[in-house]
């Protein structure tokens, strides 16, 4: 049996402190994982830190695109190289490599096209995020149900697994900034099936959260608008021909 080609897409912006251990933990989990670090125009030595491990391919973006543009670069790479599954994995050490197998299982069983690692499916032991952030996540949950009729509890989780068809779709269509909640609507609107599995996450090991203070108000307005707009758009997915 030929084993599946699995790529781990790691968007990184100023993560020189974390990136090395993130890559190591992934390779320890499964040596066959291809690690792809997208260095989103970092000001620090993220690129060197990632390359020094010798275990990852590093894509150096010549300008800062924001998380969405960085992750999409990973989808494009995965699409060009015909990977079977892609895992989106934060470069800051928030996600655990040991949880990846739980995300891949439902994809392999053809239960869904996308699998989201969620902190809220059932109460987990680990990091639960701040109060304000949890309110935002509740609002997203209601929107998900209204707009695409799928129950997604953790819209902001950036710990996700995608199958081949989803990779091809997202390589061509992916939002630029604050992409996570919007992508759920985009995928749901285009008849991709999304499933959540419960995972544990840990608190950030270093760096700073990209969303804090006044920015969070802007974040909510921008994301809610984007979700509503995405829901208005026509379906863009055309069924891929069976290979």
């Amino acid at each position, binding site marked *: 049996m030929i084993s599946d080609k699995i790529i781990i897409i790691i968007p990184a912006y100023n993560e020189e402190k974390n990136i090395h251990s993130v890559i190591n933990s992934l390779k320890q989990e499964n040596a066959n994982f291809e690690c792809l670090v997208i260095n989103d125009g970092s000001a620090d030595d993220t690129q060197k830190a990632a390359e020094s491990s010798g275990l990852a391919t590093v894509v150096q973006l010549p300008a800062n695109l924001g998380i969405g543009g960085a992750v999409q*670069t990973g989808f494009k790479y995965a699409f060009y190289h015909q990977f079977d599954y892609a895992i989106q994995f934060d470069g800051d050490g928030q996600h655990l490599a040991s949880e990846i197998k739980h995300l891949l299982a439902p994809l392999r069983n053809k239960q869904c096209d996308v699998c989201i690692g969620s902190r809220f499916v059932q109460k987990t032991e680990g990091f639960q995020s701040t109060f304000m952030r949890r309110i935002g996540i509740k609002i997203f949950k209601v929107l998900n149900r209204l707009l695409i009729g799928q129950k997604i509890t953790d819209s902001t989780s950036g710990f996700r697994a995608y199958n081949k068809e989803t990779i091809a779709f997202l390589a061509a269509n992916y939002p630029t900034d604050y992409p996570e909640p919007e992508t759920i609507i985009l995928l749901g609107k285009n008849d991709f099936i999304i499933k959540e599995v419960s995972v544990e996450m840990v608190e950030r090991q270093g760096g700073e959260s990209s969303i804090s203070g006044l920015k969070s108000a802007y974040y909510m307005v921008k994301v809610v608008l984007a979700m509503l707009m995405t829901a208005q758009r026509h379906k863009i997915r055309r069924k891929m021909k069976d290979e």
Partner: protein
Amino acid sequence: MNNLLDILISNRIQVFSVIGSISLIFIIFELIKYKKLKEQYSLLWLGCGFIFLFFSIFKPLLQIFANTLGIIYAPSALLLMLILSAFFILIQYSVVISKLSESNKNLIQEVGILKAELKKLQSHVMDGK
């Protein structure tokens, strides 16, 4: 001769707006001619220029237009048109910028991927030697 001057002076605003419209149209044409402005982005400007010119010359039509909108001083109607045109042109710019930033994003992504591929290829070649 004196009579014509009188007419011109008593209609200064009309004279001014005719000259203004013609200058606008002229400048836009010159910019296109010297390739400082692409044709597709000039159409809105030219359209606005010709509308101004038309209403500046045919004052009674401007009067009718102003009356319909309930504007007492007819030249204010011109001002309204000016503001509206500026609005449309600005909206067009936002659309163009959005399109540009999308293609810019795609370029950045492709360049990043190509550089990584090149590096891999180079190291393969080095290993081969």
